[in-house]
């Protein structure tokens, strides 16, 4: 990670604004910032795609639209239609959310088909498949990645940013290992500073979804003055999904899954009892 080139960060960032209360002024600023900082894309809700396409006209910043967002619980037909419309309006990247409940139920054929139809409807745009990793076990994450690859997706992506927690190095590493080198991995949700960004890239992410792109780029300018010091490792518990598992936000089974992960971890005795 110490050899990481900060200057390549901008071209990995999907400059993102997905809140329901974001009006045109905010979206226009988002586009202006993306052009100024050279981010790879602007990622917005479908209702903003046409507007964003106009704002980015003449620039090399791509338009990215989410689909079936943020719950992934629309029918496959609606997701495909939503994707098709977004591409027609100028989107060249589609970030779709899988039906997480179906995945948890083990309905693998349904998930594969859900993704395949969106990939088909989106062509020639690239499709990133949002797994919402916070609601899946490691085994389910691996299976979701395999299904996404089988369905022709171009990327797998960790999170919507609206779930119980965002992306963790642990999940990104698992996803990269599963999909291999030819499929993209996007880390999104909770990537809020340059160390987060570098940690995700180190784990295998090739794309970062964040609304903190500017903060990350400005902070990254400090990296060169003391690279070794900035990259001093944090204690593993700080970057472990088990530590973010909240009983109020996760289903009981998943909360127990993460609690068990923590209980079995060798670091627990060494670190966790002292760090709050």
């Amino acid at each position, binding site marked *: 990670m110490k050899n990481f080139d900060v200057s390549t960060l901008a071209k990995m960032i999907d400059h993102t604004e997905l809140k329901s209360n974001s009006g045109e002024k905010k979206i226009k*600023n988002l586009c202006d*910032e993306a052009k100024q900082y050279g981010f790879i894309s602007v990622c917005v809700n479908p209702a903003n795609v046409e507007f964003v396409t106009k704002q980015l006209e003449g620039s090399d910043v791509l338009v990215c639209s989410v689909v079936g967002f943020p719950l992934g619980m629309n029918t496959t037909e609606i997701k495909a239609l939503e994707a098709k419309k977004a591409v027609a309006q100028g989107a060249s990247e589609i970030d779709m959310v899988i039906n997480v409940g179906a995945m948890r139920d083990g309905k693998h054929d349904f998930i594969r088909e859900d993704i395949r139809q969106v990939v088909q409807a989106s062509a020639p745009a690239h499709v990133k498949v949002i797994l919402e990793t916070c609601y899946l076990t490691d085994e389910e994450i691996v299976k979701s990645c395999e299904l996404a690859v089988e369905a022709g997706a171009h990327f797998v992506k960790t999170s919507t940013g609206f779930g119980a927690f965002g992306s963790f190095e642990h999940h990104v590493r698992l996803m990269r290992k599963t999909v291999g080198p030819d499929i993209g991995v996007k880390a999104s949700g909770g990537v*809020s*500073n*340059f*160390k*987060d960004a570098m940690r995700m890239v180190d784990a295998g992410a090739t794309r970062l979804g964040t609304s*903190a792109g*500017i*903060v990350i780029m*400005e*902070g*990254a*300018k*400090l990296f060169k*003055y*003391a690279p*070794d*010091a*900035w990259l*001093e*490792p*944090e*204690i593993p518990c*700080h970057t472990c999904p088990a530590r973010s598992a909240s009983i109020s936000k996760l289903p009981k089974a998943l909360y127990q899954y993460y609690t068990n992960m923590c209980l079995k971890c060798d670091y627990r005795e060494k670190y966790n009892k*002292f*760090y*709050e």
Partner: protein
Amino acid sequence: MNGWMNKIVKVDLSSGKQTIVSISEDVRRKFIGGRGLGLKLYTDLCSANIDALGEENAIVFSTGPLTGIIQTAGRYQVTTRSPLTNAICNSSSGGFFGAILKKTGLDALIITGKSSKPVYLEITDDSINIKDAKHIWGKNTHETMKTLKSNSSSNVSIACIGPAGENLVPYASIMNDKDRAAGRGGVGAVMGSKNLKAITANGKKEIQVDNPEKLKTMISTINTLIDKNPVTGKSLQLLGTSVLVNVVNAHGMYPTKNFQRGVFNDAEGTSGEKIAETILQGRSACFKCPIACGRKTKTSNREGEGPEYETVWAFGAQLGISDLETITEANYTCNELGLDTITAGSTIGCAMELYEKGAYPNKMEWGDSSNLVKYVEDIAYRRGVGKDLALGSKKLAEKYGRPELAMQVKGMELPAYDPRGVQGQALSYATSNRGGCHMQGYLISPEILGSPVFMDRYSIEGKAEIVALFQDISAAVDSLVLCRFLQFAISIDTFKDILNVVTGFDYSDVELLEVGTRIYNLERKYNAEAGLSRKDDMLPSRFMEEELSEGASRNRVVQLDEMLDRYYKLRGWDENGIPTAETLKSLGI
């Protein structure tokens, strides 16, 4: 000359003589303005063996090339020898005074000597007049500003001292624009020692900018960066600096009862959230500042500004007091009488622990807010219990035989973060050139707030490097004379871009950072000549020997020696913390 006004004036109050002071282009480039320029001018004039309150001490008011131009740049820096620490002291204040002082045509004002009677300086575009201050001597800061304003145009901005400064309390502040303070280190007492009550500035001169078009873009970029940063774009705007109360308390490092505990059970009742629910009347902003962290407040009896986070703590948790109204009124009183709230509160806390331990005769008990405002008044007028409390905690604790109970570094009281919960901040406290302060290297930023990234707050690895980096960046930004809060959102590279757009110079980021390094080393050199060394880069023994017993920072002590060795080596200082000849030469000192 773009950015600078190219004029520095020395006023000798003993003779009344005024002299234009010239500096070379090289000195300007190496020290820029504000803290750097003030330091250079000061150390050229004053040796390290003078009395801080003597006629031979000088006090420098300096602005920077960005002053009066961009967001937050209404500030000024004061440089002198501190009567509290006997070390070099720079103290900075927000508001508008710096911008208006610069618009009179001055980059810096040096004041030497001592007037035979109370005076104030009236500075306009054309002249500096020494005027009789008989009618305002003895008045508090608000009354002083009101009186002087009543005889001037509406554009005038005033910096003045209150009774604390007149009475040479070694932690008296200089107040400007009503409630903005150059608070730390006793700069107000230095003004008082010269019989200088106030400075009025009324400037309207234009400040030239090298590239006005690019400047517009830069100003817009700064606004974006401020808005996008979670600290400057949200927390400080909504809840002011007291947003930190609950955050720091949750980390178990909110100093309580003179740093005996790290958790204050009543923190919620004095938090930024509680201020917003109860006494808040509105926000206030310094020069062109979009953050507007200032709080306009009102109690049952009075109204004013603040309290800030450090003050909420100093008159609250530090004393075991949770009565927000009384804390707020003690803050108002400090502003009016011209006192540093941190040292005032912390010294009272020291007295309370001395009393608790049976070492102090005057009954002062934890949590008793009934006499708090009276204590503050007594300090400013050096009467009753205030005679002792006006000494500051170091001399107070020494006087009563328990020096270890003063929570200070180099004689300056520590602010509101227990260093046992933040190893980097501990090192920053210890090595701060002006004493126990958080402003010279705010490691809370990465260790607690995650800005620019999170660092493990308990680890000592990499902390020497980041402390030195933050101290140098802060010194560089202080030479531009901008608000410290901008450092959350803006990198030194971007500060360099702004500086170049305004001045037309071609600073590189490395060169600007080196200005900070130069400042830090020249300050250290002055302190070394004053007799300070490794023994003074020391925290109270409590932090190395007593673990906190509860909260999220429990079972921790500061590992200072290990960090200090690494830090000195990195700095190019000897094992005593003194810059080597080679280091000074490499920095052109």
